[in-house]
């Protein structure tokens, strides 16, 4: 069947609780876009125009339903002082965490228009919005406070601090929240719809207790800030979130993107009040055949189309940088073909 709506129109209907022509299809095509464009990764994540052009090339190739401005979750931490190496063909690698050099009280809230690579992100959002913003939503990925906090620290030490130094962790959270809000504010003015990503708050990384104590309150504050704008807020957490599935509602997010969680269980628990996004296993995108992917995606979409509040067909995590193009195409075609709501 031929699409009737543009991705912008399709997403617009979803967030006002209307069924669009077919389900939105938004695999998390982030740095994979650099492969589509035939670009070195470093050229992608250090230059806003490059990032946007790669994303546009991916949309033109695959025809999915949103542009994802993102490379990795360290961008805010970097602007707050964490140092990264920039390998030519890999994503930035954390070298010296900011909190190894400075006290949290000495770290300043970054200025998104000038600090580190935040201007790269803003430029990418603006460029993509200029090019396609009337027909495609531009998603601006914003690392949540907990993830930024971990990127400001030596990870193991930070996890221990969640148990032994709660006041310190809360101070880190507050500052990371302020930084995230500042980035959101500028991302919105550039035309991006913020999507909050908190991969390090996954139950694969921290306990439900730590999630409830440190991650959730700041996710919620960030969501509430965005609700002041009447924006529909997406929260994405990678990995296994089964133990915190019930808590996710308390974030106030309007759309929840899940990874390694049972989809039936998620729909049962969440989808009366939030739209569910997910959750095709990205490792299969890298290592399965197009036929296997088409079959798996068909089953996923058929199951999820029943979600009362709506559903977005997506991958559980980022599409692997070097996933075969035919495999990604198989995902998208299968989601589109099997996701029709309209007769």
């Amino acid at each position, binding site marked *: 069947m031929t699409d*009737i*709506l*543009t991705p*912008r*129109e*399709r997403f*617009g*209907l979803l967030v*006002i*609780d*209307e069924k*669009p022509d077919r389900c939105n299809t938004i695999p998390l095509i982030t740095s994979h876009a650099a492969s589509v464009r035939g670009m070195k990764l470093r050229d992608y994540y250090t230059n806003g125009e490059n990032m946007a052009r790669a994303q546009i090339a991916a949309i033109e190739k695959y025809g999915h339903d949103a542009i994802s401005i993102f490379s990795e979750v360290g961008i805010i931490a970097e602007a707050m002082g964490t140092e990264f190496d920039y390998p030519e063909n890999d994503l930035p690698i954390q070298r010296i965490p900011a909190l190894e050099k400075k006290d949290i009280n000495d770290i300043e809230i970054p200025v998104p228009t000038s600090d580190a690579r935040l201007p790269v992100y803003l430029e990418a959002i603006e460029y993509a*919005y200029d090019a396609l*913003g*009337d*027909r495609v939503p*531009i998603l601006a990925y914003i690392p949540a406070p907990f993830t930024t906090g971990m990127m400001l620290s030596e990870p193991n030490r930070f996890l221990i601090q969640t148990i032994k130094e709660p006041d310190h962790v809360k101070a880190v959270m507050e500052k990371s929240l302020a930084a995230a809000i500042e980035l959101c*504010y500028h991302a*919105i*003015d550039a*035309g*991006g*719809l913020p999507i909050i990503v908190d991969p390090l708050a996954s139950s694969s990384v921290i306990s439900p207790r730590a999630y409830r104590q440190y991650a959730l309150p700041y996710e919620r504050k960030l969501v509430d800030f965005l609700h*002041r*704008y*009447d*924006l529909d807020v997406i929260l994405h957490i990678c990995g296994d979130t089964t133990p915190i599935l019930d808590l996710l509602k308390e974030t106030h997010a309007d759309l929840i993107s899940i990874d390694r969680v049972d989809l039936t269980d998620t729909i049962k628990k969440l989808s009366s009040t939030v739209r569910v996004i997910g959750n095709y296993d990205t490792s299969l995108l890298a290592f399965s055949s197009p036929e296997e992917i088409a079959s798996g995606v068909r089953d996923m979409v058929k199951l999820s189309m029943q979600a009362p509040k709506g559903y977005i067909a997506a991958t559980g995590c980022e599409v692997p940088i070097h996933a075969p193009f035919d495999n990604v195409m198989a995902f998208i075609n299968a989601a589109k073909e099997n996701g029709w709501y309209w007769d």
Partner: protein
Amino acid sequence: MLKNIDPQKISLKEWSRQFRLLDDSEIRRFKYYNNDEWGIYLSPPATFMVYGARELRKLKLDNSLAALRLWGFALNESERLFRARQSGKHIIATMGDLGTVPVIAMAFPDCIPFYPDCTWWTPFFNESTVLLDKASELGTPEASCFVRSTLAAFHKMAYFPKPDILFASTGASCDDYSCIMQMVEDMGFELNWLEIPFRRKKQDHFTDEKYARTPQGLDYPERFETYLINEYKHVWQRMQDLTNDGDPEKLGESIKKNNRLRRLVDQIKALTHGAKIAPFPALEMMVIEFGNLYGYADIDEWIDILEMVKSKIIDRVKSGNGVLDSDAIPLAWITPTADPLLLNIVEDLGGRVVATEYVINQALSEIEEDIDPFRALARSFMNASLIGSTEERIRHISAGVDSGRIAGVIITNMLGCSHCAMETRAIEKRLKNVPILAIDIPAPLGITEQIRTRIAAFIEMLK
């Protein structure tokens, strides 16, 4: 918050900065259909820009809370219509008559009238050819009026919900629009057509014996009144069939409510156009005028917003403050611009709009309350802009020119609008004593430096 700021027009980014100062309680104070869950609409321009209204990046908007409320409400209309449907209300598409059928629809409980034809503006607010291109694919000629975007909107059903009932006017109305509505009908929508008669003065070669006059002083054959009353009773009957309701007293109440809105807008226009310094921008004033058609799908909230706007304007007039320089050149604007940016540009270049003829005269004057309501509606419609002569259409502008209140006239022509092409010449002939600038509105993103230069030269000449 926002109480002690000097009036001015500000950019989207400036509005975002200002919006951060607002308390949550202020944001949650205003809601449509009085719904706490999804009825909030006080969002900054950036919110609507994020969802695709790209021209907001270029537009400068008034910096008052009242204006923020006005814009939030107007730009939120699409969502509001879907929410209306979800909450069990009937969606009534009223097309082409511009101002009278919605008064009937509002007499029925939980019926929300709206104008699909107002999708006309969407390609410009979005800086997008999506709807226009789709309309061409669906069979409209590319040279037809921008109202063809309505056809695409009916095809997509993403801009408004499928109406429960559709009324469309034809006859002495815009021809391109009528053709588009025929195509909508051919797409499977059941249209209820109304025919609009052509208003004419008494002349010897016409056989009509009796003529009547509207309270606004326009003559028409009296039998047209009977004709329109029958058309409106047909609308009433269809509404009764839809709702299993229909209390004639409610029609009187609807007329009173719409009159309240019309009086309010009349006062706002008088205050704004008569002030020494323009207290409110022309773009917002256009939004206000068009709200008279149907109250942007929640007339009670819209009236409340306009009360706030009026209060703000009174404050500004009293304090001698405004949004333009005191020496801005007073202009009349004839035919609404499809591209809102043009109103900004004219003001930025030193112009000030002090009189308008936006082809909706029928929605601006009060409806008589002391006669049969159907007759009152028929007589009200007889004031319509496009059903009579050019002379009658622009008589208020002519009076403004004669009194010296208007120094220049801008006429905006629409690509493909045959009406515009013919009438602009006629208007120019009628307004011989004032300089006129006629601008052809290009497709979205089409405003060029050449157009700016023409406007700048025109205003410079008037100075």
